[in-house]
């Protein structure tokens, strides 16, 4: 392709990337390096239906003067990244000194919001992603071998979990697994324990969230693999059959190698998605048991006093986390590309 053609071809994409990826990144990085100005207080009399009271309030004139002088706020450098709400550097160091075993150290560290969120986020990602791929592959192979009249219907139903809005899907399941809901009572009956509640135990809440995660995103893997199966080279498959390969051997030595590039693709997308796990935590009201990095951002912005800098710092850490996780896959893709050219 000529350079000029390439330029015009790529320009819309480049503009969109600049607008929707680069600029927001610059914005959150900047925001995370500044904090609010020192607030000037004054004591005033507040009156209302319940009488009058002397209370502290912010001196808006004095604060406005500070704000006009430096509209960005106070330069904080890496202070927000280091505080207890994020990397908790000083607290982790103190925990390291005061604990005599790895177990004690980890239990202290998991008390800090960032690390407890990271623990759930990573567990979720590493459990849900492979399960999704396996399940999606199994469904794709299964559907592919169905009679052609049945295929359309089965594909439609297999895709349903992905079509349902995540928040709505998790809310519906949340009510069903309630200890008085149909699934919740069913599980109580199954284990013969009337006090069993999925929502009251941390372990069961984690499992529930992961089951939801697999349920929700397996259809994506299924669709990709199903499309891949349509391009399966029939002659290779037939020669394998003539050689007397069993169905399992055909899948192991013909189908899987053919779909391998798609596995990389699905793993990449799923890891990014699962690292940003958010909706089920809100939908399942699960924040007492499981939090994720995205949930921390939501919580920082959702309080009566919004913590923009804290939310920005967590966002930057999330971006860094995604970059680290994806680097092995990206390196591999880059190497493949170089080998081909």
């Amino acid at each position, binding site marked *: 392709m000529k350079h000029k053609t390439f330029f015009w071809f790529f320009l819309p994409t480049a503009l969109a990337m600049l607008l929707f990826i680069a600029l927001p990144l610059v914005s959150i990085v900047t925001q995370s390096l500044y904090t609010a100005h020192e607030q000037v207080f004054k004591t005033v009399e507040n009156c*209302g239906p319940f009488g009058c009271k002397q209370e502290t309030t912010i001196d808006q004139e004095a604060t406005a003067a500070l704000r006009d002088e430096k509209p960005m706020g106070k330069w904080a450098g890496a202070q927000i990244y280091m505080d207890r709400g994020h990397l908790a550097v000083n607290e982790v160091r103190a925990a390291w000194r005061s604990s005599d075993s790895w177990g004690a150290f980890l239990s202290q560290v998991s008390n800090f919001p960032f690390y407890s969120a990271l623990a759930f986020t990573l567990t979720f990602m590493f459990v849900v992603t492979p399960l999704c791929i396996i399940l999606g592959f199994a469904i794709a192979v299964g559907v592919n071998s169905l009679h052609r009249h049945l295929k359309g219907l089965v594909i439609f139903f297999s895709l349903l979990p992905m079509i349902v809005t995540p928040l709505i899907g998790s809310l519906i399941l949340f009510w069903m697994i309630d200890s008085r809901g149909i699934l919740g009572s069913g599980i109580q009956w199954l284990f013969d324990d009337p006090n069993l*509640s999925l929502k009251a135990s941390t372990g069961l809440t984690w499992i529930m969230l992961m089951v939801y995660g697999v349920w929700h995103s397996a259809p994506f893997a299924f669709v990709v693999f199903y499309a891949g199966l349509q391009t399966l080279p029939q002659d290779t498959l037939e020669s394998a059959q003539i050689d007397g390969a069993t169905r399992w051997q055909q899948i192991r030595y013909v189908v899987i190698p053919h779909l391998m590039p798609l596995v990389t693709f699905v793993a990449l997308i799923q890891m990014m998605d699962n690292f940003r796990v958010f909706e089920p935590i809100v939908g399942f009201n699960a924040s007492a048991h499981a939090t994720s990095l995205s949930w921390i951002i939501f919580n920082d912005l959702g309080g009566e006093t919004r913590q923009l800098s804290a939310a920005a710092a967590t966002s930057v850490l999330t971006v860094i986390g995604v970059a680290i996780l994806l680097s092995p896959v990206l390196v591999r893709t880059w190497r493949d590309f170089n080998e081909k050219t």
Partner: protein
Amino acid sequence: MFLKKVATAGAFSLMATASYAACDIDGRVSIVGNEFPAIQTVGKGAQECAGGVVKANLTADHQKINVAGMQGDPAEYTSAIIANSSIVALMNEDVIRPLDDLVAEHGADLKPNQMITIDGKVMAVAFMANAQHLVYRKDVLAEIGVEPPKTYEELLDAAKMIKDKGIMEYPVGGAYAAGWNLAQEFTNMYIGYDGAFFKPGTAEVSINNESGIAALNMMKSLSAYMNPDFLTHDSNATSAEWKAGNVALMNMWGSRVGPLTETEGSTQEIVDNTAIAGPMTVGGGETPATTLWWDGWTVAKNVSDEDAEATFKAMMHAIRPDILNEETSPQAVWLIDGYEPTDAAAGVFDAAERGSVPYPMLPFQGLLHTALGAELADFMQGKESAEQALADTEAAYIAAAKEKGFLQ
């Protein structure tokens, strides 16, 4: 579509005959606020105004959007319906305007106690009062032969008797959902134990003390009689438990008593036996373990004078004495002229009379509330000690307060 139009036209003509109080405005009105029956009544009232566009966005997530929606110039929302906790966020960001000029011009009907003045300036107009107080089942308490509890200790005894008699498995209800609700219950209980949240005159937190530990331990004792899912139960879910007949004693908002007396999703037996009493005390203290609240409306700073005036007039129309009728009166303890307290108001009145404390209007109280909501769940699940949970809360608050410039 046609049917909808006919229905709307019909509704409008009904409204016109029912309440002939004209409201002509000349400007844009856009309201954001919480979602419960009383506020829906106010939102509907403002939308009766003609001459301008009146929009209302009433949602439980109102405080996540009101500041952002009022910071633009012109602001998207010309009015935010807020309470004594959430006005602080609007004050901190300086997005609401003083109303003195508008009150002088259009506010002749307001009673002095409706005007929320901060540093001598009217910043909001209150239309209702609210508080959490006891709701109990008459029949269940009669069955165990106990008077409605006046203290949390009595409530625990009654709960034990109900459970031991096998009447109910989890007789106590409470909005203990992790987050805002859990923090609110701690705030109530801590005030009941005479705790102070901050060192006077500063933003330095001090809750890791005897009162804090006692408050947490009482909450833990109560949770033993609650549905094991209590950390996921907000006010809506707790009300549903009540309506299903699973709960006999709970601390609930006055503004939510009205819906409990409707049979939808409930039975006549439960409705007939739902009774209310004042808030309870705890640990031998005098101050009830609850907080007083007002709900009111504000006018945005970043809107034109015409829009501000239109908003003020529409909101005044929405809280005029005429709105009170058989349906709306029990929805809240209205601060509006001509309001006759209904049975549903007894709990809130009792709370006010017995010297309950209003929820603090401090610029940094919201940050402490957020920290409490996130950090106390570990204690409630028995994962850590009360001291550790309170120390965690303090540390989380300090990190947040430093970021917002309240602490250095």
